[in-house]
């Protein structure tokens, strides 16, 4: 099969509650589609084989590796990316705010994936233990922070979210 023969697929989906549409070749993964076609560059692409977790996004509320899913498989689905976590144009979401407050990032490359993972984790368990958080984040590699501040920020975000629920 040569490049010129590749069929283009139309992908209509919801991204961060907004209906979006793009065209792509079948082999394009979801992370690349979000970045290159929908220009949502907050989702980062690291290892491209499912190890680093930088490309984690939510598909129908579940955290998945954006590099291990084809864009065509996201047809009709609801995708949430890091851009969807901000409360408004200038206001950070609870998780983002906690990460900023606790210096839970240095270079920030892994951060979008970690935050998207935490969205699902904190929805499932609003009051996780430190051990549970460490295990939940075992699929997200960070080479700067040593994770300590990430755990601190996640615990603080969990507490803030519980407070908001009251």
């Amino acid at each position, binding site marked *: *099969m*040569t*490049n010129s*023969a*590749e*069929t283009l*697929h139309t992908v209509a989906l919801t991204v961060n509650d907004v209906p979006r549409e793009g065209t792509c*070749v*079948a*082999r*394009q*993964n979801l992370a*690349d589609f979000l970045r290159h076609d929908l220009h949502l560059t907050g989702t980062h692409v690291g290892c*491209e*084989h*499912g190890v680093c*977790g930088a490309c*984690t996004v939510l598909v129908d509320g*579940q*955290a*998945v*590796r954006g*590099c*291990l*899913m*084809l864009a*065509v*498989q996201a047809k009709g689905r609801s995708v949430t990316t890091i851009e969807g976590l901000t409360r408004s144009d200038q206001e950070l979401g609870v998780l983002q705010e906690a990460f900023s407050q606790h210096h839970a990032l240095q270079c920030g490359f892994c951060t979008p994936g970690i935050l998207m*993972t935490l969205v*699902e*984790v904190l929805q499932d368990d609003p009051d996780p233990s430190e051990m549970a958080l460490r*295990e*939940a984040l*075992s*699929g*997200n590699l960070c080479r700067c922070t040593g994770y300590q501040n990430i755990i601190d920020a996640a615990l603080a975000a969990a507490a803030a979210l519980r407070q908001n629920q009251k």
Partner: protein
Amino acid sequence: MKASPFAYFAPDTLQEALDLLGSLDNAKILAGGQSLMAMLNLRYAMPDQLVDINGISDLAGITEQGGRLSIGAMTRQRVLERDSLLFQKAPIFREALLQVGHIQTRNRGTIGGSLCHLDPAAELPALAMLYDATLIARSAKGERALPMAEFPAFYMTPALEPDEILTRIDFDAWPQDSHFAFVEFSRRHGDFAIVAAGCLFSLSPSGTIERAAIVLGGVGAAPMRLTEAENSLIGQVPGRAAFEAAARAAQDIEAMEDSVYSAQYRCHLSEVMTRRALTKAWDRHQERAA
């Protein structure tokens, strides 16, 4: 890296998928994609056609009839991990699944995908071997049942024809009060184990072991049952002496070797992990009884 080009098909029904597989050349089935997508991106796999079976809804689900469990091949690992019926009938699944990759991969990864990828150290093939599961495969020509013992053809290759799809896995649950444990030795949480061990055993009314199953993953090309170690447990009172004897039998196996871990090291780990699995299963019971 990016995947090489392929033609993409997303059938809605099993029949359509089987027809496609029967007519396409160099086609791969895309299940959860948590191994295949990585292999495509790395260009270890370069199929000309990809048949995505994620849209076939009747391939997923967990049912039970008369103590026999039936799991659809496209049931996600995360669904298995949280399913109350499966937890009640075969709690070892949850213990093993929590060691499969990470939340993000279990959300997509399927039991059928894991069985067909057949990584020597993967948890789900090991469990299928532990339970002597029956695997049901379909092609346009019909359906056939394969015992798990005959499912691995060779290293990472199931005994399926190119036009066949694994549709479900069936196995008998063990008695409710059976003891179980699934343990792994790996470099990092979520990595494939260097050696994994799973065990099930049940006791007679007099308190001796009357039935036992032990499986090792990561040791051979496919998960292996430890018949000798299992037999050594029968009639014994559960406890250190019986577990030590079984563990000694566990190191007396032919282990594979790679550039990182020697066969000798894997044999050593086989002994250690077998002992740990049996001990964990029994300690858990003691703690509950206390």
